[in-house]
C-alpha cells in the first residue's frame, strides 16, 4: 500500500508542472521572429549572438507606433498593462509580416525565490489564448527556483530548431555572451542605448572616453521595455538631454553595484527586474551623483507600485527629489513635457540656491558681490561646478 502511494505521488509530482511540449512536427525552422517588446530591450544582444551562431535568421517586428498599440489593445482585456498590450501588438505585427515562428520566452525566476511579474511569466499563455491564428511558438522556460536554469532554457530553444548537439549549443551561448558583454561594456561607458545596440550587432566596439559635464544629472528608474521604447516613454531620454541634463539609466550600473546598493539601503530583492528599478535608484541615491530621480512606470504595474513606493520612502529620508511619471496608451505628450520641465526647473532652482549659499560663505570677505555673481553665473552656465 505504502509503495503504491509513493509511486503514485512520484508520478504526480513529476507531472505536476512544466510538462514541456515536445515538437511534433519535423519541420526545421530557419527563421525566428522576435517581437520588439519586453525582453527584447534587455536581452536582444544575447538573442542575436545565439541565433546567429546557430545559423538562424532573426526577423524583428517594426518599432512601436500608435498603430501597434491599438492593434494589441484589440486583443486583450482592458485591465492589462501597457507593455503587455504592446507585446501582443508586436506579435500580431510579426504574423502580418508573414513570420510564423515566434520566440516568446517565459522568464519565471532569475534566482532562487526571485520571481518575475505574473504577466511576464505567463506571456506564452496569454499569446496562445488571445491570438487565434495558426503559428508556432517557441516557449522556453527559465525557472531557477524549480531548477530549470540558463542552459536548459537555451537547449529547449535550440531543440525547437532541430539542434540537439551540446557543443554547438554551448558555443552559441558563448557567442551570445560575447555580444551581450560588448553591449554592456559600451553602455556602461556612456554610449547611448541605440548606438550601443547597433555597434554590438555589427561587431564594433567603441567606448566613450570623454564625459561631458552638464549642470544637472538625473537617474531614471524604469523597466528597460518602458524606457528604451521611444513610443512608450515618449522619447524621455532625448527630451531630457535637450534640456541639458545628463541621464543615468540602469545600463550604467552593473549588476553587482545594484545588488550591493539594495543591500546597503536595507532592502531585500524580491522581483526579478528589481535591479533595474530599485537597484539603479538606490545606487545613485547612495553615491550622491545625481540631483533627482525620475520614476517611469506603466499604469497598473504591480511590481512598480511597490518598488517606487520603497524608493520614495528612502528619498524622503535623504532629501532627494523624486517624480513618478505614469504612462498608459492615452498619455498626452504635452502634459508629460510640462511635468518634466517643472521638475527640471525645480532642480535647477534648488541647485542654484545651494551654490549661492556656498559662495556667500567663501567669497564675502575677499570679493565684491558683483564679481562673485559673475563668477557664479559663468560657472553655473558651463556646469563646471560639481
Amino acid at each position, binding site marked *: 500500500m505504502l509503495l503504491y502511494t509513493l509511486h503514485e505521488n512520484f508520478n504526480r509530482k513529476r507531472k505536476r508542472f512544466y510538462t514541456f511540449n515536445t515538437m511534433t512536427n519535423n519541420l526545421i525552422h530557419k527563421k525566428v521572429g522576435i517581437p520588439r517588446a519586453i525582453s527584447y530591450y534587455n536581452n536582444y544582444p544575447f538573442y542575436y549572438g545565439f541565433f546567429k551562431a546557430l545559423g538562424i535568421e532573426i526577423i524583428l517586428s517594426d518599432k512601436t507606433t500608435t498603430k501597434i498599440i491599438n492593434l494589441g489593445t484589440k486583443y486583450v482585456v482592458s485591465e*492589462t498593462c501597457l507593455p503587455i498590450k504592446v507585446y501582443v501588438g508586436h506579435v500580431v505585427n510579426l504574423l502580418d509580416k508573414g513570420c510564423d515562428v515566434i520566440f516568446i520566452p517565459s522568464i519565471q525566476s532569475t534566482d532562487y525565490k526571485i520571481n518575475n511579474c*505574473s504577466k511576464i511569466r505567463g506571456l506564452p499563455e496569454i499569446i496562445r489564448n488571445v491570438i487565434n491564428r495558426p503559428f508556432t511558438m517557441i516557449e522556453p522556460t527559465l525557472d531557477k527556483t524549480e531548477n530549470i536554469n540558463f542552459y536548459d532554457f537555451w537547449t529547449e530553444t535550440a531543440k525547437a530548431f532541430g539542434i540537439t548537439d551540446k557543443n554547438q549549443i554551448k558555443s552559441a551561448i558563448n557567442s551570445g555572451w560575447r555580444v551581450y558583454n560588448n553591449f554592456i561594456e559600451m553602455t556602461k561607458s556612456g554610449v547611448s542605448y541605440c548606438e550601443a545596440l547597433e555597434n554590438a550587432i555589427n561587431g564594433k566596439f567603441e567606448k566613450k572616453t570623454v564625459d561631458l559635464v552638464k549642470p544637472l544629472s538625473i537617474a531614471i528608474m524604469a523597466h528597460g521595455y518602458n524606457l528604451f521604447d521611444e513610443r512608450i516613454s515618449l522619447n524621455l531620454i532625448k527630451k531630457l538631454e535637450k534640456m541639458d541634463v545628463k541621464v543615468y539609466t540602469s545600463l550604467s550600473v552593473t549588476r553587482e553595484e545594484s545588488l550591493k546598493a539594495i543591500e546597503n539601503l536595507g532592502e531585500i530583492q524580491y522581483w526579478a527586474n528589481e535591479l533595474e528599478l530599485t537597484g539603479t535608484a538606490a545606487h545613485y541615491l547612495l553615491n550622491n551623483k545625481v540631483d533627482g530621480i525620475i520614476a517611469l512606470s506603466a499604469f497598473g504595474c504591480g511590481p512598480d507600485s511597490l518598488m517606487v513606493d520603497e524608493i520614495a520612502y528612502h528619498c524622503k529620508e535623504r532629501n532627494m527629489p523624486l517624480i513618478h511619471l505614469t504612462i498608459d496608451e492615452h498619455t498626452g505628450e504635452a502634459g508629460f513635457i510640462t511635468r518634466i520641465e517643472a521638475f527640471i526647473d525645480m532642480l535647477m532652482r534648488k541647485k542654484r540656491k545651494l551654490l549661492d549659499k556656498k559662495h556667500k560663505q567663501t567669497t564675502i570677505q575677499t570679493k565684491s558681490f558683483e564679481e562673485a555673481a559673475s563668477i557664479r553665473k559663468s560657472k553655473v552656465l558651463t556646469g563646471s561646478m560639481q
Partner: protein
Amino acid sequence: MKMKEKLEKEKMGNTIPAQNRIIAWPRMGRIDIPLKALLVSLGAKVVIPPPNSNEALEIGVRNSIEGICLPYKLNLANYIMALDKGANTLMMFQAPGSCRLGNYTKMAQKTLKQMGYEFDMVIFDMYKSKMKQTLQAFWHVTRCINPWRYYKGFSLGFNKFFAIDTAERLLFYTRPREIHKGDAEKCYNKWLQIVDETNSVWKAKQLKKQIIKDFKQIPIDKNKDVPIVYLIGEFFVLLDPYTNQNIEKELGDMGVEVQRQIMFGDWLEHVLKPSIFYRKESHRERSVRYAEKYMKRAIGGECIETIGDTVYAAKHGVDGIIHISPFSCMPEIVAQNILPKVSKEEDIPVMSLVLDEQTGKAGYITRIEAFIDLVKRNKLRKK
C-alpha cells in the same frame, strides 16, 4: 552563505518574552475561529481585530499606497486595529514566488513602524517544508514545549476548519432550496458559535457529523430546478464575505446553488500535510491536469486554479461561472485574458467581476442578475 543571511533577515528578532505576547493576525472570512483555538491551546493570549468593514477599509486605504491590491489594505487595517486593541505580536504567512503577497509583510512592517507602533512580526514562509516552518513559527511565538498541547491545538484547529467548511457547503446547498427563507442562514450562524465554543478534541471531531444531521432537518424543496454556479478567482476575495459583498448570499437568494472550489480547510490540509500522507489528488493538481490545454506552466497566484476549475466545471455539467478578483491583481488579469477562449471552446458562460474599494453594490448586483438570467435561459434551452 548569502541565502542564509537573507533568511535570517526575513525572520524577526525575538524582543518580547513569550509570556507577554498578545497575538493577532489578519482576518479572512472565518479563519479567526480555528486559529484562536490553536493559539489558546498553546497557551497564548490572542486579540481578534473587528471584522472587515467600511471603517476598516478606510483606515487601510489611508495608510497604504495607491497601487497596491485590496487584500493588503484590509490586512493593514486589521493590524492597526489589533495593535490599538493591545496586541504586540503579529502573525502572517508568506508565499514568495506567487505575486505581491510576498511583499505584504515587508511593507506592513515598514508602514506600522513609521506610524510609531512597537510590535513583533512573525512570518512563516509557505514555500516547501511548510509543516516545519509553521511549527517553528508557532514555537517561536508561544515557546510551548508540550507535544500534547501541539496535538490538541492542531487537531482542534483542523477539525474546526473542516466543520466550518462543511457548514458552508451545506449552506450553499440548502439556501436556494429552503422553504422558509432564512432557515439555513440561522442554522449556519448557530453552528459557527458552537464551533467557536468547542474546546475538546473529542467534541471537535463530532462537529462535522452533527452539522450534517442538523442541516438535514431544514425543510427543503428537493425537486426545485436550481442552476449551479461555480465561484472562482482570487483566494482572499473568495473567502472574505465583506470584500466580495457577500456574493454567495446574493446568489443563494436568487435561487442559485453556489459551489466554491477553494475552501480554506482543504487548502490548508494539502499545503501542510506531507505529500506521502494523502492519496487524494489535490485541488491544485487537478487544476493543472485540466488546464493543460490552455496553460502549460503555473505563473503564480491562483491563475492555474481558475482556468482548471473552469474546464472542470464545463465537463461536469455546471451551468455558469463567476470569476472575481481584486483590481490590478496580476495573476487574475492573465486568467481574465485566457477565460474568453476557455468559455468559447468549452461552451460555458463566464463572467468576470473586478472588485475594488469603490465598487457600488447596485451595479454589481445588476450584473449578477443579468448573468443569472442568461444562465437560466441557457439551461432551459439545453433541455
